């Protein structure tokens, strides 16, 4: 009789606990692994990365040159690329201004984008020699004309970014 009463009491208590949503506290423990450090690299160019050069008051047969240098300062290896735009009346027509761009090894167009200069590391410098000349055959149509050459060097990370040929980035 007593046994039945105890059993009934225990059953009631258990049901009450379950009904009230009570949780059972179990023993727990944890372990930590500290000081996990994630540092992002940098892709940066020294100023000026873009330059605008005005070529004016020149006569047929004139020529000149200048050097454009940009330092790569990022701590990740990067592809450097060149975007150029040459416009103006002096740069068009039958005998336009002739502009050549070279890094001493490769020649680059004066009017193109995404031209690959190569793969650079921190503190490398890209140096471009720009030579220009107005043909002697340039006629009076060119009098008073002018041209502007825009040079822009850009950089993109080289890691995880290489084209199928291995010659440049898969994406700028």
């Amino acid at each position, binding site marked *: 009789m007593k046994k039945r009463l105890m059993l009934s009491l225990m059953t009631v208590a258990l049901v009450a606990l379950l009904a009230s949503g009570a949780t059972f506290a179990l023993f727990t423990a944890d372990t930590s*692994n500290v*000081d*996990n450090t994630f540092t992002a690299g940098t892709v940066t160019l020294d100023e000026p990365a873009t330059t605008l050069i005005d070529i004016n008051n020149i006569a047929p047969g004139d020529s000149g040159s200048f050097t454009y240098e940009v330092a790569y300062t990022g*701590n990740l290896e990067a592809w450097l690329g060149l975007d150029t735009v040459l416009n103006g009346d002096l740069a068009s027509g039958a005998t336009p201004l002739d502009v050549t761009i070279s890094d001493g090894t490769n020649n680059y167009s004066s009017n193109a984008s995404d031209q690959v200069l190569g793969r650079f590391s921190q503190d490398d410098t890209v140096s471009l020699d720009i030579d220009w000349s107005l043909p002697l055959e340039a006629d009076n149509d060119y009098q008073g004309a002018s041209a502007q050459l825009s040079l822009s060097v850009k950089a993109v990370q080289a890691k*995880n970014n290489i084209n199928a040929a291995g010659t440049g980035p898969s994406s700028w």
Partner: protein
Amino acid sequence: MIKKKFFLALAVVLCTIALVTGGTFALFTDSTSPADTSFTAGQLVITSERDAGDTVPGPMFYVTAAQGATPSGQPGIYPTGVWAPGDFYMGTLTVYNRAPSTLDAWLVSTQADLQSGNAAMADKLWVEVFHPEMVGSSMTDVKIAEGWLSTFLAGPVAFNKNLPCMLGGNCQLHFKVTFDRSAGNDLQGEELVVTFAVNAVQKKNNP
């Protein structure tokens, strides 16, 4: 008849004398003292070390060898260097269940705690946790949890199955962290330092 009366009287006299003198009756007795009974709860304790082929204390992920140095000054041998979008690295944590622990354990979840740095970076770091186990006849990394590091910073991320870590044994976990390719230039040069934690619960009475 007279003899009987005599002995009876003698007994009464003897009893009376005993009572008067305060004598006691000694009966055979015996007793036992109940043995001391004590109740001691078990202890659940887990520890861990990074494992790059040799378990040592120290972070799983570090940029320079100096950052990965053990407390004894041994430099880390697998620094990640600075991270570029698209980079991923693996780290291994060996979890131990040994003295003073006295109970078998389930490993049930992992989480991260921010120590310092730019928390925005955590939205571009994808974390996957694997448990190496035999699948068929080869050892395979079975994924048990994944998510952005920011999710792990927000609270425990439960494993998709509890891992037994028996008393006296250990359990290995592989952490893979990927810097997402969509990480923008605003994260260039930024740093984030976190603690990874693994949580356990008793295995006894907890199937």
